[in-house]
C-alpha cells in the first residue's frame, strides 16, 4: 500500500503521494539508460526473483509485478509511479540483471511490412 492509499493520510488529496519522486530514484531524474522506451517489455529474471526478498519498496514491487511480462508504462500505472520514475527504476533493475528488458526494434516507422501487419490487425477489429 502506498502512502496515498492510507486512510491515515485523510484530508490530503489521495492522488498525491507524500513522497517526492526524487526520493524513489536517489535524486536522479534520468534513467541510467536514457533511451528506455515506455513500451519496452519488462520481465523479471531468475536472478531478480531470487533477489526479491532483499529488495525494498518500489524495486521489490516491480520484480514482483514483472513475473508476467509488461511494458514500462504498465508498471508505472499499476504501481502508481510517475512514468519517469518507473523508467529509472526499471533501467536500474535491468542494469543489475534483475529484469530482462525487451526493447522494440528501431526504425519501426519505416518498416512497411510491419505497419501493414498492424493495419490488417486493426481492420480485423469490429
Amino acid at each position: 500500500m502506498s502512502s496515498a492509499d492510507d486512510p491515515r493520510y485523510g484530508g490530503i488529496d489521495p492522488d498525491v503521494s507524500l513522497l517526492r519522486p526524487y526520493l524513489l530514484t536517489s535524486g536522479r531524474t534520468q534513467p541510467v539508460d536514457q533511451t528506455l522506451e515506455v513500451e519496452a517489455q519488462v520481465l523479471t529474471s531468475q536472478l531478480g526473483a531470487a533477489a526479491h526478498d532483499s529488495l525494498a519498496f518500489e524495486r521489490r514491487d516491480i520484480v514482483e509485478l514483472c513475473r508476467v511480462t509488461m511494458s514500462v508504462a504498465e508498471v508505472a500505472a499499476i504501481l502508481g509511479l510517475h512514468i519517469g520514475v518507473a523508467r529509472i527504476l526499471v533501467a536500474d533493475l535491468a542494469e543489475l540483471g534483475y529484469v530482462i528488458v525487451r526493447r522494440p526494434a528501431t526504425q519501426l516507422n519505416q518498416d512497411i511490412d510491419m505497419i501493414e501487419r498492424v493495419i490488417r490487425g486493426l481492420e480485423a477489429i469490429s
Partner: protein
Amino acid sequence: MKIVIAGGFGVGKTTTVSAISEILPLTTEALITSAGALIDPIAEVPAKTTTTVALDFGCITIDEEVKLYLFGTPGQDRFGFMWHDLIQGALGALVIVDTRRLDDSFPAVDYFEKTGVPFVIGINVFDGKLAHDLADVRWALAISDEVPLVTFDARFRLSVRDALLAVLRNTIDKNRIKTATR
C-alpha cells in the same frame, strides 16, 4: 509498436484510448506541488497548487507477436518526461483537435510539424457536429495539404479504429514519398 495520441486538455484523448483499448486505459501521472507552482509563470490561478501531467495508455493485440500501444499525453512535465521520449519509434501520431477550441491544439500541431513524425489531424466530432468547415480548420491551424485531416468520434471504437488506420496509412505514404525522392 506504438501510436502517440496528442492534443490539448479535454479534446478526448482518454476517451479515444478507452474506446479501442483491450485493457482499461491506465493513467500514470506526475503531480507537481506548490513549490513548482509558485515559480510557474503561467500559474495565474492563485489556488492552483498542483499540476497533473497524465499519460494515458491502452493496448491492442494485433497478433500473437505484435501489440499496439496507444499513448496519450497533453505535453511535457518537469521530471524529464516529454513528448520527445514518447515519439521515439512511434509509427505515427494522431493529433486530436476540438474545433470549438482550436487554440488548444496549436502546441501539439506545432510540435509534430517540427519533429517529422508522420501525423494526422483527427477532428473529434462531438455530437456529430462540426463547428467549422474542414478547409477552415486547415487554414486556422496553418497545416499544409500533406497533413491528412480526418473527422472521427472518440466515443466509438470503429471510428477510433479508422482514425488510427488513417495514421498508419499516412506513415506508409510518407515513407513512399521519402523513398521516391531519394
